[in-house]
């Protein structure tokens, strides 16, 4: 057993030195962001103001999606407001790191050492885990120091840092597992990011279904929050109760995930493989025999699992809407706050806008991931063989773009339908709800296409950086977008960067043509530019 880990230490140093720029940049950027955020949310808030902002998170069910109210203190306020954003950043950092050092660079990373030293089967994975855990601990300390310097209680500041590190480490473990399950780095990243999205939504649902105390400043989450690592981090309640013991939960789950990854790696290496050897047809069906048919064949499994996933999700969200309605009755004491946002009906609408907005980000992951397949096929796949046939480059790229654009649109339709029909069933009037929510889903399509267009442009211009740029575009679009950007009080011009900010808030608002046409135009422009760039450049096979 221990032999399987031989060389871990040496590979750890290799991993650190190879990542000597990217990882420190991530850590410093997150820390700098924390500095910026705590200096925006100044400590001059009066006790009354603190109560009112805490109530903002405590009373409105839709807002609870993004933060857990834990009392009327400055620290608790920073945690309610910033927690999800930092949790996501730390998790993304950890996921990308682990995938980079297992799937993506696995072979080359090993090759460097295999000549000189013997390297155990799990050494690479173990070294990635060691470095990522170290990075998270470092980040926890930095965040603790930053919050302490802000004048917040020391122990709580470090508890906050630890909560983020716990989440980062959990998702490092998940990414390690995903790297073994998925055959490619693209697949592994997508799988782990989907896990993150799910964790975020599950924690949010737990908070939404929770109960608020009489003062309206503290939410006791419902059980779903405890199913999600993002939820665990919130339940540590830094600056209120500092539940350090929850770190045990993070540590335990990380160990389980890491052990799972090691187990799968063993199976993979002994040649059994994770996919059983199957046979198939000896000749191609006519549907396969075109670029479009080929891409559909390659993508259909991924698409169908996403369709089932978002469909189930839509059903859950639709069903929860009944609880939202019920909650409104309980919350009679808070008329004043409801009035500020415009009446009871709007609360249900606002919740749906929020859900749809989140699902739009999740579905955009599908588009990004699907388009990244182009790069994978090019650098380490048969793309060059295809482009050596009578298939033009334009045809090749367009077949991907069509497939992904339509697939993305279909996912939005599925989400709108499932949420709408279920909400209609629980609240009555299926036709009206379905119609409303289908529109609410479909209005996001142009925004998702803009992100997709940016991915095509990155692919055309910078083939070797496509994946990095694509996920960067996605993270920027998400972070500056309508929920996170507004929550962080980002300046309006920064929020305007995100295509999602321009999506009409349906239901509630009515659909206007201008933003939709604008976004579609942008998407076409980006895609067209990417296509032109791709037609002019070399096909880049990196494994040469």
């Amino acid at each position, binding site marked *: 057993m221990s032999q399987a880990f031989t060389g871990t230490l040496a590979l750890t140093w290799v991993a650190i030195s190879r990542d000597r720029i990217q990882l420190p940049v991530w850590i410093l950027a997150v820390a700098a962001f924390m500095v910026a955020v705590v200096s925006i949310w100044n400590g001059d808030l009066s006790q009354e103001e603190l109560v009112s902002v805490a109530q903002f998170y405590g009373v409105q069910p839709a807002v609870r999606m993004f933060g857990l109210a834990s009392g009327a203190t400055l620290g608790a306020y920073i945690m309610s407001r910033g927690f999800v954003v930092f949790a996501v950043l730390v998790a993304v950092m950890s996921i990308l790191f682990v995938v980079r050092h297992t799937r993506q660079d696995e072979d080359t990373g090993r090759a460097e050492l295999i000549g000189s030293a013997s390297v155990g089967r799990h050494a690479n994975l173990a070294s990635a885990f060691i470095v990522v855990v170290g990075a998270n601990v470092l980040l926890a300390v930095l965040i603790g120091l930053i919050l302490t310097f802000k004048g917040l209680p020391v122990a709580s500041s470090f508890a906050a840092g630890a909560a983020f590190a716990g989440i980062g480490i959990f998702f490092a473990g998940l990414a390690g597992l995903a790297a073994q399950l998925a055959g490619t780095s693209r697949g592994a990243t997508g799988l782990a990011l989907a896990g993150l999205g799910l964790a975020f939504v599950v924690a949010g649902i737990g908070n939404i279904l929770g109960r608020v105390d009489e003062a309206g400043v503290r939410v006791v989450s419902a059980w779903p929050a405890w199913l999600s690592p993002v939820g665990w981090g919130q339940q540590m309640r830094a600056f209120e109760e500092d539940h350090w013991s929850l770190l045990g939960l993070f540590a335990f789950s990380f160990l389980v995930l890491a052990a799972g990854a090691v187990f799968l790696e063993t199976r993979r290496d002994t040649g059994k493989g994770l996919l059983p*050897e199957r046979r*198939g*047809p000896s*000749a191609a069906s006519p549907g396969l025999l075109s670029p479009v048919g*080929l891409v559909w064949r390659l993508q259909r499994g991924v698409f169908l699992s996403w369709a089932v996933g978002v469909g189930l999700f839509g059903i859950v969200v639709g069903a929860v809407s009944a609880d939202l309605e019920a909650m409104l009755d309980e919350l009679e004491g808070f008329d004043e706050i409801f009035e500020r946002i415009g009446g009871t009906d709007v609360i249900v609408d606002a919740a749906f806008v929020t859900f749809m907005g989140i699902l739009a980000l999740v579905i955009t992951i599908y588009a990004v991931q699907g388009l990244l397949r182009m790069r994978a096929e090019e650098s380490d796949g048969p793309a060059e063989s*295809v482009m050596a046939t*009578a298939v033009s480059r334009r045809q090749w790229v367009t077949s991907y773009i069509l497939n992904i654009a339509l697939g993305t649109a279909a996912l939005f339709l599925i989400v709108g339908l499932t949420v709408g029909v279920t909400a209609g069933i629980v609240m009555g009037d299926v036709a009206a709800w379905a119609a409303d929510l289908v529109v609410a889903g479909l209005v996001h399509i142009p925004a998702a296409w803009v992100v997709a267009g940016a991915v095509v442009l990155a692919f055309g211009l910078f083939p070797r950086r496509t994946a990095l740029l694509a996920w960067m575009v996605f993270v920027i679009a998400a972070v500056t977008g309508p929920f996170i950007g507004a929550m962080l009080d980002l300046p309006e011009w920064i929020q305007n960067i995100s295509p999602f900010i321009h999506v009409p808030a349906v239901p509630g608002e009515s659909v206007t043509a201008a933003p939709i046409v604008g976004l579609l135009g942008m998407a076409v422009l980006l895609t067209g530019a990417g296509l032109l760039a791709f037609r002019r*450049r070399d*096909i880049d096979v990196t494994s040469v």
Partner: protein
Amino acid sequence: MPTAISIFGLVKNFGSTRALDAFDMTVWDNEVHGFLGPNGAGKSTTIRVLLGLLRRDAGEIDLLGGDPWRDAVALHRRLAYVPDDVKLWPTLTGGEVIDLMGKLRGGLDPARRAEMLDRFKLDPTKKCGTYSKGNRQKVAIVAAFASDVELFLLDEPTSGLDPLMVMAFRETVTEARREGRTVVLSSHIFADVEALCDRITIIRQGKTVQAGTLDELRHLTRTLIEVETERTVDDLEKLPGVHAVEREGLQTSFQVDSDEIDRVLRHLVQFGVKSLHSAPPSLEELFMRHYGDEVSEQKKPEEA
């Protein structure tokens, strides 16, 4: 004679590395053309430029009467490519890939497909993810030769094949030539090139170092001769083109430039030849001369 491919002054840079440096090559119609050179010499790069996958920085290329970059799609209907590292879709079967590639190229002869599958003993029902390197290569070869095209660009197609499959491959190439097709065969395997190629081009560090028929190239090298005579051979060293003479009693061995063999043999018979063994230069020796590192390159002038 009409040319299938003519390349003149081809330059291709990757950043600061110059992969092709004023490279020239001519491939006649209906010949099997060997393309040889050490690792990193630029063979795959040349083939990729010919396929319009890479954009050249300078030089003129005529490929089947067209320009490989501008007329890519039209040209690709008339040629088939086997890449050096065959990568396939893990979830598709070999049979599906063969049909797909054939169709995308513009059509496939079903009878020919069946014949090739049989010849290469390939199971078309297996998923590509489970094929070995050699079997993936066979998929690409079958897909290429089941198409009715004029030109085959093959980049080290036999590097993963077992000896039986190499024979099947040779048979296939010979057949293609008989049918009037043209083949460019990049290879490190001398035996394949010696068995198949009409002409060869040797590339080194992106430049053409030698081109011609195998015989022409052989003339540029030396033949090893071992001879046993009744009397000691005298004055051998004085003859032009004779090198590395070694005597052991009545046994003499030496090397001779191929175009001086006749004169040397006339000289030898004066001493009563009892047995004679001559080894023509193998392609491998030819290679060594042209591939040879800088040291042997510098040795040349002083030998002359």
